[in-house]
Every structure is written in C-alpha cells, then in structure tokens.
C-alpha cells in the first residue's frame, strides 16, 4: 500500500471518467430493463394466451444466456447483420435486456400478490383491464416490488463492469488500463473497489428505507 495517497491523487481523475460511464451504463440499462420488464410482466398477466406464452419464452431465453455473451452478440455479431452499435449503446442494450427478465419476474410476483378481490372490485365499478392495472393493481404492487427492485439496482451497478468486455471504458476497465501500464495493481484495484462501494452505499440505504416502508403497511 506504499504511496496509496499519492497514487489516489494521481489516478482519481482518470478513474472518475470511468465512474461517469459506469453511472451512464447503470442508469441507462436500469431504465431500459424497467420498461422492458414491465412490458414482459404485463404480457404475462394479460390473460391472453399468445402474449403470456411469448413473454414466458422471451424471459427464459434471456435468462438462459450469460450477460457477457449477450454483450458480445450485440457488439460483434449485430454489425454482420447490418446493425452497428457503439460500445456504449450495445452495453446499455445488453444489460437492459438481460436484466429485464429479472425485473419482469419481480414485477409479476408483485402484481400476483395483490388480492383478487381488488381486481373484482375494480371490474364491478366498470373498470377495464388497463384502468384496473393503472389505478388499482400497480399502485399497490409498487410497494411490494420496491425492495427487490433496489437490490436489482445494486446488482446492475456492479454488473455494469461487464461492459468493459466490449471496450466501454467504465470504472473497471479504466482501472485495468492504469494497472497494466503502471503495475500498481494493489493500489489501483483497491481504489476501484472503494469507488464501487461508495456508489453502492446510497443504494443499500435506499433498499433499507424501502423495506421499512413495506413493513409499516
């Protein structure tokens, strides 16, 4: 750990560039996975056979492919099919798709935890499927879904490091580049680990807050 403070001062600005990209990848793929996950979950509970079958198949396919392979596919194979994505686009798309399967299962569990009587009450005052979802089911499901959603956020923050495998210079890749050019492995990777941890702590506190709120209701 000799010269740790000295190295910190020297490498911190470069690593912060990585942090910026890490945050972009995390937020981008979080938004995408949330929207996609909601779509899969809605299809799954729609009661329409075709839609729920498609949704179940998509979720299983996504779950069965490692994130890293999905990223390689988007970044290296898609150009052969005529679709060229930047590394950043491919990273957000890949992580977003990969995590949408977990989000969908989480959302579905939340939706199915709502008492059937709630849906019947909504129907009995003339609400259609979509209005019932929007006004009655989803607002109640959100409370149930939030704690696991917070955990997914933490996992996505850490898994954004997989974007390094397709050349996105986020925190992990910046660290690796500095380490391999300076041979200061210990100091650099300690610094990288501390920076991930620093970003995780607010999320961990957020999850705890969500859990307390659910416990109260």
């Amino acid at each position, binding site marked *: 750990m000799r010269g740790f403070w000295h190295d910190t001062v020297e490498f911190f600005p470069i690593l912060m560039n990585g942090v910026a990209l890490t945050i972009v990848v995390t937020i981008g793929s979080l938004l995408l996975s949330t929207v996609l996950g909601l779509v899969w979950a809605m299809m799954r509970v729609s009661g329409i056979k075709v839609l729920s079958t498609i949704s179940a198949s998509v979720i299983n396919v996504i779950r069965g492919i490692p994130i890293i392979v999905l990223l390689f596919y988007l970044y290296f194979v898609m150009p052969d099919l005529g679709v060229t994505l930047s590394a950043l686009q491919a990273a957000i798309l890949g992580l977003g798709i990969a995590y949408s399967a977990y989000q969908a299962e989480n959302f579905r569990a939340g939706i199915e935890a709502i008492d059937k009587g709630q849906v019947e009450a909504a129907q*009995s005052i003339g609400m259609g499927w979509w209005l019932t979802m929007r006004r009655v089911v989803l*607002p*109640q499901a959100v409370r149930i879904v939030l704690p696991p959603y917070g955990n997914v956020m933490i996992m996505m923050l850490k898994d954004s490091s997989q974007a390094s495998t397709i050349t996105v210079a986020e925190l992990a890749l910046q660290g690796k580049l500095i380490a391999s050019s300076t041979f200061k492995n210990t100091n650099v990777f300690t610094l990288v680990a501390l920076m991930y941890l620093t970003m995780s702590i607010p999320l961990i506190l957020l999850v705890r807050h969500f859990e307390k709120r659910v416990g109260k209701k």
Partner: protein
Amino acid sequence: MIALTDVHKSFGENEVLKGISASVHKGEVVCIVGPSGSGKSTILRCINGLESYDRGEISVEGLKVDRDAPSIVAIRTQVSMVFQRFNLFPHRTVLENVVEGPLYVKKEPRAVALERGRALLAEVGLAEKADAHPPQLSGGQQQRVAIARALAMQPKAILFDEPTSALDPELVGDVLGVMRKLADDGMTMVVVTHEMGFARDVADRVLFIDDGVIVEQGQAKAVLNQPQHPRTQDFLRRVLHLL
C-alpha cells in the same frame, strides 16, 4: 330488469348452477338464501359478468350479459356490487374509494363526483371518515363505505354478496340498517344473505337455492314462515338454530 333463463355453470366437473331461471323487477328486493356452496354467490357473480356462464341467458335491462363483450362495462356501471370482504382499495382514502368509479369510469367532473361522494358518505354515517384509509376502519364501517362506493355509480340495481358474513356480530346491525334504508328508497337489490330476519322484513321475494337449483321461491314471509319444501324446512331449522 334482471332476467335469468335456464342458466348453467360448471367449475370443471362440478356443476354449480343447474338451470336457474329467475327475474328481478325494478324496485324489488330479492334475497337469495340457501346452504354454503349451493351456488348463491355464483348467480350474483354471473349477473355482472365477474364469472362467465356456460348455457342459458342473463340479461340486464334487455342487454345480454357477456363478460367478454364491450357491453359488460355498461352493465357493470348499472349494476353495482358489494362484496363479502368489502374489497375497498387500501391505498386510497375513503372518499377516493367512493369517487373512483365516477371519476375514472364515468368521467364525471371532479367537483360533481366529490360532492356526491361526500353526500353518500354522510348518508351511510361516515362523513367524518372521508380522509381515513380503509384499513383504519372497522369491518362495519368498511362495508358501509363499500355500499357508498356502489351507490356512487348511480346504479339501477345493487348486488350484495353476503355483505354481513365477514362482520363481527355487533357490527351487522349498522350495515343492515343502511341496506334497509336503501330498500325503503326503492333501490333494486339482490341480496345473498344468511340474515333471515333481514330477508323476512325487507325482501319482497326470497329464492331458496340448494345444489344449483331454485328449490322454492315466493313472497319472503311465505317462504320463510311456512316453507313448503322439506329441504327449505330443514335449512331454515338449521340457520334459525331451532334444531
């Protein structure tokens, strides 16, 4: 106003309705009584399309009840339902529960819906609970909110599915009182109930259902005081604890 013609309904192998024919006229209070599992609640749930039926026909004001047709929304806004377990929306206040249908289904102006919502809560004796959330209320209070929610749709009829069965005995009276007032005001009501006193005093007609068929029907006092069919006699002996 509500007409059932030879309605059949099965859950899998189990046939719960075996040819129900009945009608409910405007302003009439009809009580459906009978043992548990006889199909009473299923009849109500078929009338507003919460459940589908296999054969026969149900119509409301001449409109065929088909839960998969768009017309089901029109039927449900005319025929409200009050559930055994209240089924209030726990994430909304009492007043929001009441105005939910008028605002979001009937798209009434906010001020109009809120004003009527408050008036209805006053009518069921819960004006001061408008801003409370349902879980903070007693069962009896929740059920009265549910009745206000049903009334807020300005329905032509209300279906009551064992409205007092989930209540502590001392809370039953308040709910029955509200229902009695509704009946006096001329509301068309179909009530599945085990409250024989209410049926005798308030209902115009009683249907006794057992094993998916109407065993006996007629004027409330006649059926409940001098039942003709042995199954009705047996059932009444049991519920009135005369055994």
